[in-house]
């Protein structure tokens, strides 16, 4: 997967607080992945997961969600 990681000069639309938050997570993921073999997307989703409660983390990790 190839990402457009650094589009700094593009006009910024008006973003909601939530959009800004997740955009900042994505930018953090890109920064963390820089110079490594890691996929920014994997780091981004891990950063998102770290904001969840343990129960939400487990729910998201089960293939057969809703079985319980």
């Amino acid at each position, binding site marked *: 997967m190839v990402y457009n990681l650094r589009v700094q000069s593009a006009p910024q639309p008006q973003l909601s607080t939530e959009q800004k938050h997740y955009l900042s997570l994505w930018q953090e993921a890109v920064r963390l992945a820089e110079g490594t073999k890691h996929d920014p997307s994997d780091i981004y989703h891990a950063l998102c997961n*770290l904001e969840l409660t343990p129960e939400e983390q*487990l729910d998201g990790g089960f293939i057969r969600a809703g079985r319980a």
Partner: protein
Amino acid sequence: MAGSSEPVGLSPTERAFLRALQSQGVPFMLVGIAAARLQGAPVVTEYIDLWFGEGSQQGITAAAKEVGVVYIPGGIAMNPPTFGGRDVRLDQVLSMSGLASFDEELANTTVREVNGIPLRILNLDRIIESKRAANRDKDRAVLPALEAALVALRSRERTP
């Protein structure tokens, strides 16, 4: 998460069983993908892997009986110890590749509360170590996501 329903986490039977294990004094920790998931890893599984300390067999059997979890001890039909039941997604891990003993690895765990139950979770770097050592196709497949999650986790530990 916006728009999602109330999180479930552990099933009622799983909660009762884990509490019963603790009442019985059975030492255990969560390992594998569910434990990695509880540390942010973007991975999926069907089971919660439990690693028990030496000599836990009797306590596991008693806890299972107490809460009605189906538990088949190992060796009856050349089977490994096995859990069963409609809302039981538990698996007993007999050994962890590439790691030290259960007692030694206890130092490499973190306690997290899930559904009000404090649980010992094997740290992500040790889970990665065990996956590298096991080196099966399914272990290799999940390593990139686990390693990326460790980067994210360490970043959060530096700047919470």
